[in-house]
């Protein structure tokens, strides 16, 4: 099976600790199935637009939701977001920004680019689990993406 087919959640995060904690939080909320993790912006774009090692999958196949860290190696999270929003095939995928930063300029810029939700990663892990729960419930259960 080609990696990344039939993915519901794409997590774009370079910090392995954060990846592990995020997985933990998702698992606790039973959201970890069909989750794919990419470690930098370039790989994220390859995945989303089915290029390079992901050329086997199709762009239209998903994911259903993207969890995006803003601070990424190679290509910045903002640029990834910009690329997603610039393409007709991907621009309606819900994007949730995960960030350590509560810096206003990030928030303003991402909202301007049409981000669907914004989570400042708290140090307190329990709070993080709560937020992820609400998020998963919201995006995967209630909010069915439009069919096209």
């Amino acid at each position, binding site marked *: 099976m080609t990696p990344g087919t039939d993915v519901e959640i794409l997590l774009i995060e370079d*910090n392995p*600790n*954060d990846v592990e*904690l995020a997985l*933990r939080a998702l698992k606790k909320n039973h959201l970890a199935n069909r989750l794919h993790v990419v470690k930098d912006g370039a790989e994220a774009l390859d995945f989303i637009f089915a290029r390079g090692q992901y050329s086997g999958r199709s762009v239209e196949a998903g994911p259903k939701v993207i969890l995006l860290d803003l*601070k990424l190696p190679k290509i910045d999270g903002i640029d990834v977001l910009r690329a997603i929003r610039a393409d007709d095939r991907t621009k309606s995928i819900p994007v949730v920004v995960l960030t*350590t*930063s*509560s*810096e206003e300029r990030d928030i303003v810029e991402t909202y301007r680019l049409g981000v669907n939700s914004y989570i400042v*990663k*708290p*140090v*307190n*892990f*329990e709070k*993080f689990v709560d937020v992820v729960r609400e998020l998963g419930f919201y995006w995967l259960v209630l909010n069915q993406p439009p069919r096209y």
Partner: protein
Amino acid sequence: MGWLTRFPRTLKGLLLLLGIGAIGPLLVLVGGAYWSWYQTRMDVEYRFNREFARGVGDGFLAFAHAIEQQAGSIGAAIQTAQWSVETTTAFLELNERSMGAIVGSYSWVDPEGRVLASSHPRAAGLSVIDRPYFQAVLREQDWAISDLIRSRADQAEIVVIARAIKDQKAAVRGVVLVEIRPDRLGSVLRRNRPGSGRFALFDRAGRLVYRGGPSVGASQGDPGDPMVFQALSGKEVDGEFQPTHERNTHLGSRVPITEIGWVAGASRPKPEVIAPVYTSASYSIIAAVLVLAAAILMATLLNRRILRGVDILREHAALLGAGHLEHRVDLPEIQELGELAKTFNRMAEQIMKHQRAVKRTNQELLRSNRELESFSYSVSHDLRAPLRAIDGFSLAIVEDYSDRLDDEGRRLLNIIRTNAQRLERLIDDLLAYSRVGRKRLEFVKVNVGKMVRDAFSEQTAALEEVPSLELGTLPEAFADPTLLRQAFANLLGNAVKFTKDRPSPRIRVSGSANGEEIIYSVEDNGVGFDMRYAGKLFGVFQRLHRADEFEGTGVGLAIVEQIVKRHGGRVWAEAEINRGATFHIALPQNQAGETHDTGD
């Protein structure tokens, strides 16, 4: 009349005033001198005319006496000799010839007025009994002189001098008449006057008998001027008059010849008298006009030059004022303006220097601000990620390995988590503090009452026991709403924190305006603090309470102080242990506080 008050304010007007101020008094002085000269000349002329007229009168009188005496000798000879008419006539003719043209004729008249003999061929036999001069000598006078009369012998205009010849008993035995030809009087009254001076004789009737000087068409028998008639009453008269047949006014004197009742006069045309004054004055006027014209020309040229210089300077100043500091001006023609121009140039140089310095400082500020921003950015990112890991994995151990951990192990892991979370709060507060310092202020009118209520509900949302909130009058503030709200949130948060677990916790917020400042006070009945440590209150990470009593990072009040200071205000507190604390914020009224922000 607006120009009259505005006029001298211009440089041009001032220069013109200066010119008038300098030349005006000079003109008055010169005019005065000429006036005085004119007066003097008139006075001198009158004196001279009077003297001259007296001379004429005296000369004529002397002549008349000489004639009268000679007539006396002739008469005495005729009376003594008792000649026949023919011999007497021959004697009279002989005398007439010896006298020349001035004497027209001699006649011998008997006391009855009949001409017995005469050197005039047609006079013998005529009667002069009715003539006033004859009557005069018949009565008492030795001699008399007639006015200008018409000769009965030949109708000529003549003057007659009559001399009575008396015997020892003073009875008139005969009268000698001497016919004087007035037109010949010039030879007797020969006098020199400079220029066109005149002199004249008038008889008792004021008629002109003789006029000396340039011929002007006046003739014998013409009536004299009014001054002649004044002089006939016996006093000497000076004045101006208009002679008949003449264009010019005359300055003259009329002097009575008292003995015979005649008048002598002398005069001169006024233009001739004052001609030197007029000539000199007109030269002066021409000179003055020339000088004035030259002065005006020079003033205009100078004025134009100065004005041009001033215009250049004005333009220069306007350019400098508009920010064209590189503009330079050079005015070598006028020293003062040149120096002014140099001063302008130096000033512009100085301003440019300062501008460069300010620009450098600004750039440095911008750079350090950017550095600070990127510093806080990485602090918030890079420092928090490891903390998250510490907290998250500590929790993972607690969750996944709880069966292998005893209570102490769990307690220790919780200490790790608590500290990680505390460090996060410290970082967050520090970032908030630095954000307050960098934020661009936006001043608007703020409804403080609503702001306080909102901030209070936010601070107490998670509490089970909410302290009571009392609001006094809270005037509107002119401030940055985000920052002011944060200041109130921090103060209210503190008040809530320090009244927790106190009996009937109460927070009161009030305000007052005194025209200069609006002062807001947040008062609580909490634990208070020792005023000895009040100085440490607003320092970063400064705490007056132990961490196990009240949580906190010690940044909240530092943020409050920074916010108030950026608004140009001040903050202070008073408290008593276990009695509560009051924090005051004073914001300047009608003033925007900090108007420039270095953070752009």
